[in-house]
């Protein structure tokens, strides 16, 4: 297990960029680069990170980065991987870095295709649970009850379970992470780098702008997400499901904090009734029963 002191000082996402103050995605980017280092080629579809680069002729990124159309992270990554193979370049990590919209909605096809073809790359979805770049419209990853500009009275449907969808592709590595647990995050990215094949990392990326909480609380909200069980930290390696320490102890329901603590801390859940909260609590509990069964196998 790595320690903070061992981490390199070098930054590959440069300060003074357009990201919102307190942005969960930029913390995640910093952590990703601490794990993967300089030899990374990024593919970025339309998403918040498109804007975070800053305007031409400047970019906040210190690694080669290909911007691509919204749907096509998985496909463009497949092309880059094939080209590097033909050029005999073996020490570069290809990283697809996309928002939830570009992953679970419009980008799903090309990601599924890339995974089915066993494309050797890391796909990272940083999930702020809405279309952030265009001002927080709902996506398939928006959770039940959340306000977005296209679900002003709260989304009626539940969040699409993308990590499980990717696991169903039979890829060698799926992991969920959150910037609030940085060492867990970095360990998983480093592990992914060593594995051959398609690796899928899903970051829950708390978003002060979209979720309506002060920018100083990004890490705290993320911690609450894990402590309430709304977000579970796990890995699925070659089909084997395993909860990681911050989440593993929460299989015991009594150790999970009530979801209300997480939900009431965010303005986007302001409209939730007690009944809604009870429904969410039940959904979380049912999800954890499923984790219990998966862990036992």
């Amino acid at each position: 297990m790595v320690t903070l002191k061992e981490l390199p000082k070098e930054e590959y996402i440069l300060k003074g960029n357009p990201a919102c103050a307190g942005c969960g995605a930029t913390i995640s980017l910093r952590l990703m680069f601490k794990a993967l280092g300089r030899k990374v080629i990024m593919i970025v579809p339309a998403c918040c990170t498109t804007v975070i680069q800053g305007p031409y002729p400047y970019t906040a990124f210190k690694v080669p980065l290909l911007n691509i159309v919204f749907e096509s992270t998985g496909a463009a990554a497949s092309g880059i991987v094939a080209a590097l193979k033909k050029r005999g370049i073996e020490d570069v990590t290809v990283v697809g870095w996309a928002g939830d919209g570009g992953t679970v909605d419009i980008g799903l096809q090309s990601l599924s295709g890339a995974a089915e073809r066993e494309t050797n790359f890391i796909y990272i979805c940083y999930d702020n649970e809405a279309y952030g770049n265009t001002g927080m419209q709902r996506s398939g990853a928006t959770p039940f009850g959340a306000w977005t500009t296209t679900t002003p009275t709260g989304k009626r449907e539940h969040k699409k379970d993308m990590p499980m969808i990717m696991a169903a592709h039979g890829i060698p590595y799926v992991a969920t992470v959150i910037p609030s647990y940085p060492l867990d995050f970095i360990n998983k990215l480093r592990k992914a780098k060593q594995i051959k094949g398609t690796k899928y990392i899903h970051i829950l990326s708390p978003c002060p702008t979209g979720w309506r909480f002060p920018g100083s609380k990004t890490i705290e909200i993320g911690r609450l997400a894990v402590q309430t069980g709304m977000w579970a930290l796990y890995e699925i390696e070659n089909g084997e499901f395993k909860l990681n320490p911050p989440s593993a102890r929460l299989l015991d329901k009594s150790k999970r904090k009530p979801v209300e603590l997480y939900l009431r801390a965010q303005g986007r859940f302001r409209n939730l009734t007690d009944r809604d909260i009870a429904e969410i609590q039940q959904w979380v509990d049912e999800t954890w029963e499923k984790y219990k069964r998966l862990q036992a196998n």
Partner: protein
Amino acid sequence: MTQTIIDTANHIAAYAAKAARVKVVAAYPITPQTTIVEKIAEFVESGEMDAEYIRVESEHSAMAACVGAEAAGVRTFTATSAHGLALMHEVLHWAAGSRLPIVMAVVNRAMGAPWSIWPDFSDSLSQRDTGWLQFYCADNQEVFDTIIQAYKICEDKRVLLPAMVCSEGLILSHTFMPVKAPEQEEIDDFLPPYDPGWALDVDNPFSHANLVSPEWYMEFRYMIQNAMENAKRLIPEVDREYGRRFGFEHGGLIEKYQCEDADLILVTMGTMGSEAKISVNNLRKEGLKVGLARVRVFRPFPKEEIRKLAENAQMLTAIDRHVSFGMEGFLATEIKASLYSREKSASDPPLVAGFLAGIGGRDVTYRDIELIAKKSWKWMQAGKIEEETVWWNLRE
């Protein structure tokens, strides 16, 4: 020693991609292009072709994968038709804006709704504004030669734009014709390895194509237009060089047949252009001075060549295989635009007539073209075009 291959235009396109030493192919099957991707799969799996073959899950992904691969520094190839091409539309813009010299075989097929598998140019001509070069072939030899030439033209640092090499579905794609393919060493000498204009490199990091404000966007677009102008000069040069080395030339921008003393010039594209040669021969036997201009390159549009043809002719008749709904045939419009003078002058430009034929794959024979020419001839003698656009052989 050249080798003779007798095969369909589709298989020939695969041979050309192999001869061009393409390193990454990303393609998806669609009628009538499918046998291209099948042939490439055979070549790759037998080891005859040293390329990575990405069997993508849609045409949109095919073009995105080509963009990724070309941006990472290798020569790429793909192929599609009709709806596959349409599906790629936004990525076609992205590829041209990225100045990536991808070459794509487009096997022309009519767009739906309703479904059609027969040829016309509605698919490729709908993409004429994307910044891609467009070549239209009249036979299988030209398909082979043009794919090789396209890489040389597109990868030139003064161009750096992608190209479509179009051939009509079923008419060429599934028809066997003999093709003479030069030796691999000779092709390698003509077409050296890909030297990218730019590529992703961990030792020289940059972001490609992040937000460009109105402060610079227009200049980048100007550069694309400029590249098209450069391509216009380079295309005939490359065709002539290819002809000198290998014995086959295809007319550069426009293949001209008996245009020098023609009163009436038929202007068309693709296989109608080779069919029309027979029509011209027959009409000449009847004493009518008719010529044929087969537009080989639609983008960049050969304005200057059209103007030269118009100097001595009294009339140009465009035979189009697609209509821009709400306007007219594409060739008809672009010819008229090319001939429209920038000066008020005393001399009259030639008449320009527009005929639509072969839409949805309806057969266009040399007899049809003769009749089109005769109708045009009457209007030319009267000095007046009776119908602005004629839908040839339309049912009552």
